[in-house]
Each structure stands twice: as structure tokens, then as C-alpha cells.
């Protein structure tokens, strides 16, 4: 067992003008996840603590928060991974805070929708499946792993500065279709991202790549999209 101090960002829109922090001391296992600590607080200390969680296994993307100053999934981060007894949990930056760790994800999803994150191919359906070579599938494998947690976009100083920036997550999901050999709308998506609030807001700061719980090479994906726009070539 390990003694830790858990400091939680608190904001209740009904009573608070300003946010504050609540501190809890507890004994935990080094292999406990940050999400477990928050469940403990919610279950035994203060039932009003609000945060999003669903799968608790790092696949749904609900529990992304700022843990010790860095975006992570609370359900994937063990106490021992943090290497300290002081754990601070705060909501992600750059989105309005609705309550405690819960932020308004709407702007995030609007950007996601704007890049046409769906398969487009108006050619008549083939008799069987649309075939794709192993190499062609490999081309966009990395960006298929996104779970839409928002850790990348809300770690990006360009997004903090301007909400209109489409953000890394949307570009990752555009990349997933742009480089899919079966899809036919790459040109349209490149056009959407060829905008002052598109890929050019990326200043290669790399916070997104570091934050991504799926280890997606986000800045590389953005770089590939930038290059495709500049050269008009998908290779």
C-alpha cells in the first residue's frame, strides 16, 4: 500500500463562480489506476464528483483528463506510472468546463464531422468485398486506432489559442480516409484541410503525439496530410 494525496479540480456551475481544488489523502495500491482513486472518492467521500468514464479499459475514450499536468486516460494510468505521491487531476484544456472534469466536447466533434470521417465511394458495388493489398491497408493503419478521446486536440497550444483550428484528432481521422485506397474523397478532404484553420495551424509542437493514449504518430499524420496538400500527391 502507498499513501498518496489526490488533488481534484472542482467546479459546480450551480454554486461556484470560480473553480477550486479538493484534496483527499488515501492509501492505495501502486497498481491502482487514477480512475480507481476517483471512483473511491465518488463512492465513499463525495458523491458529487463528476467525471466521464465508461469502459474503464482504454477503448471508449471517455476518461481523458489532465493528470499531473499532462493529458492521459485515467483508466490507463497507474499510480506507479506517475512516480509521485501527489496526484493532481484537472479537466482537459481549451474546452468549456461543464462540471468538475466534464468538458463540453461539442466543438471537438464539430471539427471531427467537418472532415468527412466516413467512407466515400460512389462506384457501383463490386460483387464481393472491395479488395485492398496488405501494403495499401498498412498505409493508414496507425490512424485507424483513434478512440476520439480528445487528449491530442486539448493538448495543442494552437487549439487553446483558437477554437476554430480543426485540431489533431480531426486530421488523424481525415488521414484515415485520405490514404485509404478504396476511398474516393481524398481531394475533397484535402481541400477542407487546406485552410488557415486547417493543417497549417499545426506548428509541430508534438504535445498531441506525446498525449495520445493509442500511441498514434499524430504529428507525422498531420505532416503527411500537409505534404499531400502541397504536392497534390498521396504517395
Amino acid at each position, binding site marked *: 500500500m502507498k499513501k498518496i494525496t489526490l488533488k481534484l479540480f472542482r467546479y459546480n456551475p450551480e454554486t461556484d463562480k470560480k473553480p477550486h481544488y479538493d484534496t483527499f489523502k488515501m492509501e492505495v495500491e501502486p497498481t491502482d489506476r487514477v480512475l480507481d482513486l476517483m471512483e473511491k472518492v465518488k463512492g465513499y467521500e463525495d458523491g458529487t464528483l463528476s467525471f466521464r468514464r465508461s469502459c474503464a479499459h482504454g477503448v471508449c475514450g471517455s476518461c481523458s483528463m489532465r493528470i499531473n499536468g499532462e493529458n492521459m486516460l485515467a483508466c490507463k494510468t497507474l499510480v506507479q506510472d506517475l512516480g509521485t505521491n501527489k496526484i493532481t487531476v484537472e479537466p482537459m*484544456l481549451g474546452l468549456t468546463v461543464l462540471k468538475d472534469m466534464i468538458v463540453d466536447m461539442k466543438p471537438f466533434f464539430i471539427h471531427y464531422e467537418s472532415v468527412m470521417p466516413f467512407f466515400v465511394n460512389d462506384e457501383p458495388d463490386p460483387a464481393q468485398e472491395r479488395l485492398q493489398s496488405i501494403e495499401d491497408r498498412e498505409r493508414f493503419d496507425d490512424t485507424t486506432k483513434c478512440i476520439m478521446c480528445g487528449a491530442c486536440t486539448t*493538448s495543442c497550444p494552437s487549439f487553446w489559442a483558437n*477554437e476554430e483550428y480543426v485540431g489533431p484528432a480531426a486530421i488523424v481521422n481525415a488521414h484515415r480516409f485520405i490514404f485509404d485506397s478504396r476511398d474516393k474523397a481524398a481531394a475533397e478532404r484535402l481541400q477542407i484541410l487546406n485552410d488557415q484553420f486547417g493543417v497549417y495551424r499545426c506548428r509541430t*509542437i*508534438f*504535445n498531441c503525439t506525446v498525449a495520445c493514449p493509442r500511441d498514434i504518430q499524430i504529428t*507525422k499524420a498531420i505532416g503527411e496530410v*500537409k*505534404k499531400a496538400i502541397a504536392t497534390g500527391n498521396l504517395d
Partner: protein
Amino acid sequence: MALNRKVSLFTGLKYKGGGPMWAWIMHRLSGLAMVFFVGGHIIAGFLTQQFGSEVGIAINTIYENWIFQLALFFLVIFHAVNGLRVVILDLWPALLEYQREAIWLQWLTFIPIYGLVLVVVLKDALGG
């Protein structure tokens, strides 16, 4: 009511972004500093030439000070090497996977160049 999305400079700086985030911040600051250096240099030249002004001479004295020169070289060389890293990564996105190594390489390039500056400037300043 909800809390405004605005991220203050202080909150932003507290985010643990690591090497590339600081490189980006320093790139911005050094870029801005260079605008002032060049601007100040032009103004000083103009004032001294046209009016033989004391202010121009005062600015030039600051520019010739060795501590100022060390700071100036630091910012200019940092800006150049960092800019080069970003340009190279932009041209060959495949290299973006090696961004950590790129930061190391950047300092490995910076140190000998700046070391040379240190030797030359300090020799001049201290050796007379």
C-alpha cells in the same frame, strides 16, 4: 453556466509538453527578439548618421557589449537550428517519428556552433 474555455498563458505553460513545446516557445520568443535587434540596429544607425545623436551611440554601445552579443548569438543560432529542424521534418514527414532524436540532434548541432561563438567572443572580451 460553464467555465470559459480560455487558456491563460500561465496555465498553458504549466502543461507538461516537453522538449518540442519549449523549442516552439523559444522559437517564437527568439524570432520576436530578432525583430527588436534588427529594428534597434537600424534605428541606432539612422540616429547616429543623421543627427549624430547620443541615443544612437548608446544603443551601439549596448550592441557591442559582450554579454549582449552572447545572448544575441544564442537566440539567433537557436532560431536558425530549430527552424532547420522544423523545415526538415516538414519536408520529410516520415522523419517525424524520430522527433525525440531530432531534438537531441538539434542540440548536438547547436552546442559546437555556440561553443565556437563563446570562444571567439570571450577571448575578445576578456583577453582584450
